[in-house]
């Protein structure tokens, strides 16, 4: 009898609190939030984004969401993201190419007109106020006034939070400090910039700078290349009117002087006395020819840079005048610094440059180095062009490029002394090993490209900005950087990176890891939780 009473008592003790508990916390009505899928890259494509996705998913689960992480092959991921827009949330990145230092491109990824399938704003963020400011800044020629608009846009984007900028990953590279010195470090490009070959000083008899790369140019056709690997190689043997200095200021290079007559008329005085590598002089006609040739052939990659040029004329003996249809804020920094000057006497005869076979592509430029050899997949060589106006400062005989199968191969090349510098960042696990090598100096430079979590604003629950904010507060950026990037990165809050100091707005909302804040925001948005902690959407 006593035993039975005890049993009942125990049962009551177990059951009653459960009821009380359940009664105290009203079970939410409606359906729990459906499982969210976070798409990310495969581990082999990028271990950082892969690991980050799981870390973020764990935190979201702590908020009561059900989260499934789906790593995908890169091309499948891009297709799903851009072409199908069939995702809840996706982690991807934008690389920091120099032409993206101008905020135009990154701000454009949140523009309401870019939400179509295949366009740059797959999350579907539309904010008329933002869009208006976007148009205003792209037409604003005065840098300070433009800056104010750009700052305001960043503040708006940070609060609406359609894209959670996760972090900026440092470009960590290394060079052999026993063979060369005086390397130039540049934001976004690190050591592999156009100034390093002009500045380095050899420390030994070997006067060829050897660079290891994990990839090679897609093509060395200057009109047709769409990759940085093509561009960064070709810009050494082609000259450009403007080059961006290591401090990322535009400086006239093949141009003697740039005069803005008014907002839509820009005169470029071509430097005198330059020759192409075949001995022919570089003239204003060549410059005019080049720009018109690029416009006429209409290759996709250059179209955005050139679309606002209405006409080009040669004024006087050495001046080229660009007449623009509308003011373009980025004309000098981007358009003039992107297009290589081609020798008119060679290219004029080529009717359809897209059809050139690899060995038919002309390699004559007027740059500080001249083309010498290219074995696809293995090796490239450039030699110093002694007649270049800048040749006096060049201390080396030329540049050797060795192509490796992957970044692991490049790293081994650096460790064994086969190469003098790396053109591509090291993996986090390699950094410490490199730091322990006596002959290697490790250089870490901030990047202005960024990794982002893009929410699909067309779907629940991402259509609510409070939920997006809550989810962003649940991202532990400091741990991601500390653990996955070995501390070499910076937490992200804006599409314009802090290293892009002139345009970056440092005073916008920061989503520093705070799960309590996340819960508050979700509550504010009307979300509730059941007794097991699962989250329910508001009715």
């Amino acid at each position, binding site marked *: 009898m006593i035993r039975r009473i005890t049993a009942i008592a125990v049962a009551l003790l177990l059951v009653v609190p459960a009821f009380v508990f359940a009664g105290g916390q009203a079970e939410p009505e409606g359906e729990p939030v459906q499982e969210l899928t976070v798409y990310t890259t495969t*581990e082999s*494509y990028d271990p950082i984004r892969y690991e980050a996705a799981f870390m973020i998913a764990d935190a979201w689960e702590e908020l009561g969401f059900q989260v499934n*992480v789906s790593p*995908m092959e890169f091309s499948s991921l891009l297709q799903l993201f851009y072409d199908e827009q069939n995702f809840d949330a996706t982690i991807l990145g934008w690389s920091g190419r120099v032409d993206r230092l101008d905020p135009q491109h990154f701000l454009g990824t949140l523009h309401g007109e870019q939400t179509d399938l295949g366009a740059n704003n797959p999350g579907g963020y539309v904010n008329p106020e933002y869009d208006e400011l976007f148009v205003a800044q792209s037409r604003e020629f005065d840098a300070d006034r433009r800056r104010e608009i750009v700052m305001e846009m960043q503040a708006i984007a940070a609060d609406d939070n359609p894209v959670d900028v996760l972090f900026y990953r440092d470009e960590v590279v290394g060079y052999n400090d026993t063979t060369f010195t005086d390397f130039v470090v540049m934001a976004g490009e690190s050591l592999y910039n156009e100034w390093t070959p002009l500045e380095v000083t050899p420390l030994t008899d070997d006067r060829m700078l050897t660079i290891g790369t994990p990839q090679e140019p897609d093509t060395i056709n200057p009109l047709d290349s769409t990759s940085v690997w093509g561009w960064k190689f070709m810009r050494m043997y082609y000259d450009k009117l403007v080059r961006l200095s290591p401090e990322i200021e535009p400086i006239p290079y093949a141009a003697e002087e740039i005069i803005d007559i008014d907002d839509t008329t820009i005169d470029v005085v071509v430097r005198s006395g330059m020759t192409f590598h075949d001995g022919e002089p570089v003239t204003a006609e060549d410059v005019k020819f080049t720009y018109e040739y690029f416009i006429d052939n209409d290759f996709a990659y250059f179209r955005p840079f050139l679309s606002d040029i209405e006409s080009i004329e040669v004024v006087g003996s050495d001046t080229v005048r660009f007449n623009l249809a509308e003011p373009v804020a980025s004309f000098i920094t981007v358009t003039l610094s992107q297009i290589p000057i081609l020798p008119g006497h060679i290219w004029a005869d080529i009717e359809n440059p897209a059809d050139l076979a690899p060995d038919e592509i002309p390699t004559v430029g007027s740059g500080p180095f001249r083309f010498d050899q290219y074995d696809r997949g293995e090796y490239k060589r450039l030699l110093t062009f002694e007649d270049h106006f800048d040749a006096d400062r060049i201390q080396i005989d030329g540049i050797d490029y060795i192509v490796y199968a992957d970044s692991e191969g490049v790293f081994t090349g650096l460790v064994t002394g086969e190469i003098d510098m790396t053109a591509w960042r090291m993996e986090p696990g390699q950094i410490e*090993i490199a730091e322990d090598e006596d002959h290697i100096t490790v250089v870490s430079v901030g990047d202005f490209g960024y990794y982002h979590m893009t929410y699909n604003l067309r779907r629940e629950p991402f259509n609510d900005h409070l939920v997006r904010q809550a989810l962003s507060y649940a991202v532990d950026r400091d741990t991601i950087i500390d653990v996955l990037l*070995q*501390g070499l990165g910076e937490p992200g809050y804006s599409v314009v990176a802090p290293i892009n100091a002139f345009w970056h707005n440092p005073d916008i909302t920061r989503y520093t890891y705070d799960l309590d804040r996340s819960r508050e925001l979700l509550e504010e948005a009307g979300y509730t939780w059941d007794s097991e902690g699962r989250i329910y959407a508001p009715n």
Partner: protein
Amino acid sequence: MKRFLLTIWKTIRSDTPAFAGFCAVAVLIAVALGAPIIATHDPNEMNYRAEGSALWIDDPEAVELEESIVPETLRSVAWDGSRYVAVGESGTILGRSETDWERIDLAIDETLRGVSLSAQAGLAVGDGGRVLLFDGEAWIAEQLDESITLLAAASEDGGMLAVGERGSMYAGGTLLDAVERLDPAALGASFETETGGRWRQVNSGVTGDLHGATLSDGLGFIVGERGTLLRWENGRVESIDSPIFRDLNSVSLYDRDNGLAVGDRGTVLRWNGTEWREMQGPISRNIRSVTMTAPDRAVAVGTHGDIMILEGDVWTRVRSGYDRHFRGSAGSDTGFVVVGTDPYINALSPPGGEHLFGTTHNGRDIFSQVVYGSRTALIVGFIAALMVTVIGANVGLISGYFKGRTDSVLMRIVDIMYAIPLEPFAMVLVLLGRPGIGIIILAVGLLTWRTTARLIRSQVLSLAGRPFVKAARVAGSGHLRVLYVHIAPNVLPLVFLQLAVAMAFAITAEATLSFLGLGPPRLYSWGTILHQARLSGAWRIAWWWVIPPGVLIMITVVSVFFISRALEVIANPRLSRS
């Protein structure tokens, strides 16, 4: 069937290598089944370490680590000319005058985040508005606003300053007079603590967190979030235009004309008596603490073992050789001491101790990964081998029995299968679906039944002409019956042999595909472990990461080979050794 299995068992039992292989496979199956029990860690867990350590830098060439003084992490350290005091997590407070750290027990458990010592006074501050005062002999615990986390402290000549979250700032001791002389309307709340101490809240004019404070010759600076720089003098707080926008974490004044402030992303600012100027340092990670011990001498510390020393105008990086996250710094005339450490990843730890096979670059336990890897290997190996054998045996049977056009078509399909390489084929499947265990099974299963089919076919070809087959046909048995009832049992030994061979191949193929990164996410396989080792770049030094998974693949495959060799004797008695 029972007799057949018994024969197999007897054959294996009598063949030493085969028996050893059998035992190895049995052990592996046991490991796979018991993986959650056998594994010492969650294979996906990144393992951290956290303890209170100190690093002594008397000579920058030879730093000396005093490891795990206490289990709690240490946040801050100070030197008053004769002794060091370090504070940390869970109310830890340590004093050291001679050679040993001694714990000072104050029965508090809030985390202490800042400590400052001066000739007349010392104080430590921490979570929940906790303030500890040192009167020269003993520490007294006091409490200010409970809802505020205090992050840093400064003291001089009996004057005390405590700063913390959301711009909170408190003055105490001899600084109170100066504060109270100001416009009474501007005065903040006053606190009388239980032990009789008096503090007053000071309006800092900012809302961001304040991370560091310093006082010297009546001049003070407070630094904080987004480059916040506040100047303190005579009870007045004034905001200074900051040359940077990144967080500042620590500030140290030597005298009125020399000071340093450090912050995120390697930020260093130098005070020359009139203004703060940005300075170039060799560190690009976040810097947590700075201590200036002379106008031309200072130490700054940060995460991942970053330490740098200022001599004159030049910062030099000190290679600590430790991947610890340091928090606090202090310096005497002879050298510096640095304390920490925040939880840090127990990366690339060699085998032994807590991690039997060591850890990966993300601090994951390799032993547990290898244990879980046996599951993937066996599951994939078995299912794929079954698929291969079922498809291959049937194709072989049908092809060999019906001959003619059927045979011709089936054998052309086999030819096609030989012409398709495994890795690119698996890649196609991954692009059609998602990376995962199913893809690997499918890739192996769909592609590699070719050899089995060929072998079974040739045996069926030689059986089909035998009298017993003809007899069965004459007796009126249908084709299927003849094929599966009369012929199939005769090829069974060969089928079993092929199952074993296919399994060995499938395990290798799984490892190969996983090594190329096509393996299932978050489920470990031996190939995946090697893939990660290579991807991280650490494989060239971390031999403990490379050897175990490979050895296990080898043991598993060779065991299956040994077993299959024993089966071969049954399948093809001509090979018998007798």
